[in-house]
């Protein structure tokens, strides 16, 4: 019912907080004792009034009520701080661990798993797990303690009365058992319908041009209405269930009082119990109702938490495909000769992405990689810094299999610029010097000049200290690309890997950058994937990929002379360049 097994993997995180939970449990017990003391004291007061005891005794009992509640308040405060605090610390550590774990995973994981999905595990799932570890545990303990203590007081008053008044509470368990799963099922269904509705809205907004061109607005509204009505109907179904549950819970609460009045009244009239007993009993019954209701709620927390815990565990179970298990500590990238022998990549569920790639690039030379979108260019490039592992064949740098080079050494030696320039929400300088801890402003400036950004940066309101990205200024695509390039150059790599990095830069700037880059990269092994052939014109070799395989290879001049993708593309770009010149 509590689905404890789902939480088993959390044991190591639970352990450091074991004392906190233990202490918390003691506080729970204490707070329950003081809680139960109150009706007992009130009952005592009523008894002494009945027996016409001196008023001082009653006054002392009233004072005792205040003392009990103060102790109860103090322990309740402490209990909450201790248990919720412990659950928070577990969450804190678990989040940190999860984040670190994420950092070890390779690109294949991030391709497989949507960002939104990972984010959900970091947000709503973490919340659900924490709710189970905090309030979940706290209320379970509290419920248990209060229930047992109240029961003890009631039994002390009268066994028969206790048994009779437990009957409505048993009814409560039956009701929760009946309605609980139904409410759960119907609310899942409501969530599904909301998803459908949201998918409809999303598709409508994304395809607005077709909707308008085909004059489908009316039909789309009708569809939305259908979704809305279905969702409405489902929510009302759910509301009926919830209303029944709610009304029945109240009714049971009331029946408990009624049963006390009936049986207690009968016993009172027959002189079997006193009015004081009656009062104490009534107070305890009130204490019993809340735990019974809370039980249903706590079970939901645990069940939801278990489902989320499983999803968090799933994330933790993801294993990186790239590691240092074959690394030899002393192996380093030296000259930068790059060899691919029959290299392939195939992953579920995408199948073969690359196959039979053979490359031999001498140190200090440039390789051009060209091909249509989706041909495998980016995957090929990601193999070099081992962001992605090859699933077949062998890659070697300076003759050493790439897996034997320690990952840290390899990545230090490889400068990589992905297709989508990515900037962190940080300053320009921090973005350029990302990954280098002892960067000097002069060094940053020098690199900015190489990518022809120096003047533009100087014009930013805060210059090199200008924040970019989220909460910073918005950069143009070309500016982003050049900053991303600068970042890769900044760490002075042996091998430079550029994935179509100048697509958003205009031709003039591109020429300027390429010129600067050529001086700067002379002697660097460079791999450039591009749609712009001017970038690979001087490459040592160019490979044309299609469908994950090499379909053409040669130098620029050779490929232009041969019919095929490369020559086609070259002609197209010559047109574009010529049109650019037109006024």
């Amino acid at each position, binding site marked *: 019912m509590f689905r404890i097994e789902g939480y088993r993997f959390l044991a190591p995180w639970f352990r450091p907080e074991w004392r906190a939970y233990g202490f918390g449990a003691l506080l729970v017990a204490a707070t329950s004792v003081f809680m139960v003391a109150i009706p007992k004291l009130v009952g005592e007061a009523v008894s002494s009034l009945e027996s016409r005891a001196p008023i001082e005794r009653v006054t002392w009992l009233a004072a005792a009520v205040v003392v009990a509640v103060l102790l109860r308040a103090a322990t309740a405060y402490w209990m909450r701080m201790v248990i919720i605090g412990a659950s928070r610390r577990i969450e804190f550590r678990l989040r940190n661990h999860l984040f670190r774990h994420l950092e070890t995973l390779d690109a294949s994981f991030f391709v497989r798993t949507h960002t939104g999905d990972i984010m959900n595990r970091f947000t709503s799932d973490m919340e659900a797990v924490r709710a189970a570890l905090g309030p979940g545990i706290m209320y379970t303990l509290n419920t248990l303690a209060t229930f047992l203590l109240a029961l003890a007081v009631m039994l002390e008053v009268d066994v028969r009365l206790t048994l009779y008044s437990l009957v409505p509470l048993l009814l409560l368990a039956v009701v929760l058992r009946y309605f609980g799963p139904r409410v759960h099922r119907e*609310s899942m269904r409501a969530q599904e319908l909301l998803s459908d509705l949201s998918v409809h*809205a999303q598709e409508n907004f994304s395809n607005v041009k077709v909707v308008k061109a085909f004059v489908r607005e009316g039909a789309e509204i009708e569809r939305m209405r259908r979704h809305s009505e279905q969702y409405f109907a489902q929510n009302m179904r759910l509301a009926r269930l919830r209303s029944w549950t709610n009304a029945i819970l109240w009714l049971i*609460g009331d029946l408990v009082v009624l049963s006390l009045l009936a049986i207690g009244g009968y016993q009172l009239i027959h002189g079997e119990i006193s009015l004081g007993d009656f009062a104490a009993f009534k107070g305890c019954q009130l204490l019993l109702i809340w735990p019974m209701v809370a039980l249903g709620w706590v079970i939901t927390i645990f069940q939801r938490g278990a489902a989320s815990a499983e999803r968090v565990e799933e994330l933790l179970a993801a294993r990186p495909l790239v590691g240092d298990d074959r690394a030899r500590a002393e192996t380093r990238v030296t000259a930068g000769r790059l060899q691919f022998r029959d290299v392939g990549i195939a992953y579920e569920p995408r199948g073969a992405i690359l196959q039979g790639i053979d490359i031999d690039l001498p140190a200090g030379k440039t390789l051009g990689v060209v091909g249509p979108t989706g041909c495998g260019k980016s995957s090929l490039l990601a193999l070099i810094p081992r962001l992605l592992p090859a699933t077949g064949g062998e890659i070697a740098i300076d003759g050493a299999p790439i897996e034997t080079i320690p990952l840290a050494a390899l990545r230090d030696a490889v400068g990589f610029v992905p297709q989508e320039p990515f900037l962190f929400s940080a300053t320009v300088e921090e973005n350029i010097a990302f990954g280098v801890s002892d960067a000097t402003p002069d060094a940053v400036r020098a690199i900015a000049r190489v990518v022809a950004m120096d003047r533009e940066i100087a014009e930013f309101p805060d210059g090199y200290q200008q924040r970019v990205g989220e909460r910073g200024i918005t950069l143009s695509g070309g500016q982003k690309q050049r900053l991303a390039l600068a970042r890769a150059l900044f760490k002075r790599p042996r091998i430079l890997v550029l994935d179509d990095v100048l697509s958003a830069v205009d031709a003039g700037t591109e020429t300027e950058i390429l010129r600067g880059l050529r001086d700067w990269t002379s002697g660097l092994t460079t791999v450039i994937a591009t749609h712009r052939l001017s970038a690979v014109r001087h490459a040592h070799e160019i490979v044309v990929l299609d469908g994950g395989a090499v379909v053409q290879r040669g130098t620029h001049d050779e490929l232009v002379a041969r019919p095929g993708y490369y020559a086609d593309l070259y002609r197209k770009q010559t047109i574009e360049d010529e049109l650019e010149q037109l006024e």
Partner: protein
Amino acid sequence: MSGAPTPGEPDGTRPAGGASERAPLGKAARGAASRQDFHAEDVLDKPFDRDLTLRLCRYVRPYARHIVLSVVLILLSTLLQLLGPLLLKEAIDGPLAGAPPAAAPDVCAAPLAAWLGELLGGEPDGQGPAPAAAGTDLRLRVLAGVLAIYFALLLLAFLARYAQTIAMNFIGQSVMRDLRMHLFEHLQRQSLTFFQRQPVGRLVTRVTSDVEALNELFTSGLVTFFGDLLTVFGIVALMFYYNPKLAALALATSPFLIGITLVFRAKARKHYREIRRTLAHLNAFTQESISGMEIIQISRREDARAEQYAAINSRYMDAYLKSIFWYAIFFPAVEVLSAISLALVVAHGGSDILLGVTTFGEFFLFWNYLNKFFVPIRDLAEKYNILQAAMAAAERVFGIIDHDSALPEPAAARAVAPLAKEIRFENAWFAYDGANHVLREVDFAVRRGETVALVGATGAGKSTIVNLLLRFHDPTRGRVTIDGADLRSFESAAHRRRFGLVLQDVSIFSRTVEENIDLDRGLAESELRGAAERVRADRVVSRLGGGYAEKMKERGRTLSSGERQLLAFARALAGDPEIVVLDEATSHIDTDTERLIQEALETLTRGRTTVVIAHRLSTIRHADRILVFHRGELRETGNHEELMARGGIYARLHRLQFGLTDAGAAGHAPATNDAPP
């Protein structure tokens, strides 16, 4: 009708409040939301805004009767709930009272019990405390009478509560549905420019979660407020009615209660905001790290990033612990106050009982009422949070509704007649932002039955021409006419129905293949299948396991781009459009599909006025006229031969695309587009 359970006791971990019952959004909805971003939607402080409230009231008005009903029902159930302790008092002072209470002879301590006593066969005396003095048997009978009344009240309260919860949910759900539909209908009227500016994810959030947030306002805020009000004032009134002095004592703590509630609300809100802020920061950082993971790994910043993450995480934890502190203080403090009231009642009421001024029944009554009195005031803080969240959401929703970018429709629309002569652009200019013109001085005509091709580099303005033609935008200067009538004089829907549009990026909806071709136009199955067969899309369909009934995946993932293109042709052809507009695909499609598409294209355009944006010159060689655009201006017009002879932009484009042969080659240009020069 005892101190009834309140399942929503705040757990101290959810200062947002009230959400514990509701499951998180479903997977797709969450996905849609996450497509937006995890960055802070700034935490709005919108406690109470008169204008917003009035606008919300407009959505509630159709359900005024339900509101009245549910207020009546909640008042009824609250009243019944207040009657419970009274009956208990009657029982205690009546049949349960062991010794005759020393009440003043003119005041009967238990009038109902006395009446029951008479009814059930006591001495018809009515003066004194008859039932109490009567024998055990009569006392039991009177107790049974009280129990029967009590039970009847319970059943009535049960029904009232059920009906009231349903009514409240009905109102909430109805308002939500109406607002959602209103918002969606409003969005359907918005111009293309609007959608080009708004991220899809944000709009989806408005239609889903923001509208959802309002539901909470109705189900747990608005109506229950009346119940709470009656509870508080009813208890105060009844207490004072029975025993003014004891009531004054018992309620002496309530100013403190209100005071700490106000302090708590202010503190909780402050910390809630801080939590939201740090959490937004944490989530933004996580998302950024996931997106930039390659860079982090290649730059080997894993440790540095993890440390940064831990730092933000620890700020988040601190913010939460601070807010827990206030929750941990507040709830016990309320308990302390309520127990102090109870102690005062015990002490003072006790001496009154001994003096014979008060009865045990009254003592129980005060005890019960005190339990009920503190609940609504304690929950006030939580209700306030709900109100605030709902108001912030309402403001975002109304923000969309207030902005209307719909193109103006003519007051008296001209009837759309079949194209007789021509479509004409007359000195048309267009700028998206009003300043930078993407089209300048464009003048041309497309005559009925003609095929006209638009040619030019990326950014030349070709797509804008299509947008003006279908009246997605109106020209900023000049006009577009059909047979001499300005497009603005037609109803835009009627105008668009003339067209069949095929876009480069094919829109596939997650519906069945058949529905994707039909698009809810209600076309006959034969028409749909006929169209599919004529453009050879039937081959694609037969490849799918489910045929025409196969449900497409999101964005048509299971189809190749060429196959999606064929479906789009079928979709356009099925409507039998008068004018066909094609934004020809440039993506590299395998030669097999390409031939199919070429044939489909011919089928579709045969005998129809056609405007095609051509990326491959070979596909438009047979166009009647070719319009060459460059940087927003129409630079050359003519057929292929004329343009080639002219030796301008087109000739250059052609020469480059088909090889470096001389312009004289135009006459015997290659027959198929993929042939080498």
